[in-house]
């Protein structure tokens, strides 16, 4: 296991390097001089000094390899650069303040998704073509087809019109006011997790369907175990692997989804920060946020892989 883990960890180094090169290159695809583009946004007037200052601040007056080297050197030390707007605040601080809210949202969403999806998928699989199976298949197909932003609007519409319930206004942090925070985060997490719930339920159903036909399930029944134990200990335990992998992948997608959900529900997370900075063309900040998200996803995928290896010894020797 240790060898497998070391090999997997070593493999992410080239990936992370390439991710950084991609982000860096994309941000320089901008035709012309970024400093000029930023300053001439709208009808703003500017002086030559301002242009030279901004070039200095962006570092675009230096050779591109030096720029990349500087940026990486900073990244390794946890320095993500400085924002162009926001009076030159360090991006690390901006991102650090907000990323926890985004993570909280993503974690809540995946908990909600798994909590609904696994029972739904299992019941669907053990009673195929029953009413519950039919209902759950329709829900899951609808779930994977509804875009996240429409799911968000529908959640607001149904709960406010149908039940007259609205989350308390004004964002509260988890540490300051946990109860208010959870009330506020529940709706966005529900809307965000809806797609994943549908997706995970589909995977659970199909992997349970396969497992139910396995020989060891018949053996477990034949030796007189209670049906509940057969299903949970012999069935679900084996179905957990694909469910876990999918949930890990979905975590990456959730990061994308939070951008939309945060903007609908006005959660001050990293997604709303990204949108603000895209509007302001604050390239150092955009670059920083994207690399933070991409590296987080690489790390989460690594953790899922390691967990997979831990749970299923066959993987390690493959």
């Amino acid at each position: 296991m240790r060898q497998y883990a070391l090999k997997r960890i070593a493999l992410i180094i080239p990936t992370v390097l390439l991710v950084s090169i991609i982000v860096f290159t994309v941000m320089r695809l901008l035709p012309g001089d970024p400093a000029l583009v930023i300053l001439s946004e709208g009808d703003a007037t500017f002086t030559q000094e301002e242009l030279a200052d901004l070039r200095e601040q962006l570092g675009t007056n230096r050779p591109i390899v030096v720029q990349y080297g500087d940026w990486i050197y900073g990244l390794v030390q946890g320095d993500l650069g400085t924002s162009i707007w926001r009076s030159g605040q360090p991006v690390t601080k901006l991102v650090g303040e907000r990323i926890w809210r985004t993570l909280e949202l993503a974690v809540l969403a995946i908990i909600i998704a798994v909590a609904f999806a696994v029972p739904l998928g299992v019941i669907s699989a053990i009673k195929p073509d029953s009413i519950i199976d039919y209902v759950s298949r329709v829900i899951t197909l609808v779930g994977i087809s509804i875009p996240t932003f429409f799911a968000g609007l529908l959640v607001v519409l149904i709960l406010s019109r149908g039940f007259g319930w609205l989350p308390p206004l004004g964002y509260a942090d988890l540490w300051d006011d946990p109860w208010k925070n959870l009330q506020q985060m529940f709706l966005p997490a529900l809307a965000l997790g809806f797609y994943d719930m549908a997706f995970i339920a589909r995977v659970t159903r199909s992997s349970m369907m396969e497992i139910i036909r396995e020989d060891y399930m018949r053996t477990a029944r034949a030796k007189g175990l209670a049906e509940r134990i057969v299903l949970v200990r012999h069935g679900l335990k084996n179905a957990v692997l694909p469910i876990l992998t999918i949930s890990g992948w979905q975590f990456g997608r959730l990061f994308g989804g939070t951008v939309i959900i945060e903007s609908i529900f006005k959660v001050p997370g990293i997604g709303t920060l990204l949108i603000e900075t895209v509007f302001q063309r604050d390239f150092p900040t955009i670059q920083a946020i994207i690399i933070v998200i991409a590296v987080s996803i690489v790390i989460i995928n690594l953790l899922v892989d390691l967990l997979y290896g831990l749970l299923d010894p066959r993987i390690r020797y493959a």
Partner: protein
Amino acid sequence: MTTTNTGRAAPGVAAEPQLDVRPKQGVVKRVGAFCRTKPLGAVSAAIIILTILTAILAPFIAPYDPLDLNHEPFAAPAGDKLLGADELGRDVFSRIIFGARVSMYVGLASVIIGISLGTIIGIISAYVGGIIDLAIQRIVDALMAFPAIIMALGLTAVLGSSVNNIVAALVVILLPGAIRVIRAQVLSIKELDYTLAAEAIGARPWRIMLRHILPNVVASYIVLSTITLGLAIIIEASLTFLGVGISADIPTWGGMLTEGAQKYIRTAWWLAVAPGLAISIVVFAINFLGDALRDTLDPRLRGR
């Protein structure tokens, strides 16, 4: 007779091996069989064709001009205004019809370019192998680390958000997945007897890739294109919804759902529900058709 019964070319015979040994089936017959075995898939295909026709014929179908202020602002859905009017009094039904144009154009263009490029790169990567394959796969790994919408936001921030720039961003997003799926298939195809036979009679690599491998990934190409079309449409709509996509002058489904619709969701619910349903129904149909096509054409892709 240039080939033997087993399909292997005899040594020294330089002629072309027979390519397709399946019984030739008419297109009409195959479509008929698909409709019988996959009725829901056929209905979905009809919905998609109808949407494409709507997009092409929008000016002839729409009852009103999508930009004119024809009704009272916030007029509720009724007889001559099927889906009501928006905050300026524009006809929502006509705007939905015109909105199909952007969704369909962006979706189809990005999928055709992205999946085709991905197929070409995937075939080369797998067939040539070695250091080229390794390099391409590492880049694919790295590209996979970016969530689609984040990548799209970054690219449109840099490129600007014209319709064609959004297509370009979507191509970059669709590429890695397509490369990976096609590469995996080609890796197994290139070990099959007919490829080895073609190599044995001295066919050049490009000929093998073009005549022996390409025809065998066509099924995956069709399935991949269908499945990713839904994703492309959703991402375009999401970008426009967030306000960084296509400009508000053009009626788009994502655009109709933006701030305006969010603000009025408690009073004029149809403003958000109409475009939301339009996107959901089209994507639903695409997903259904994708599933049906996959089961029919390429069961190996099941579970992807």
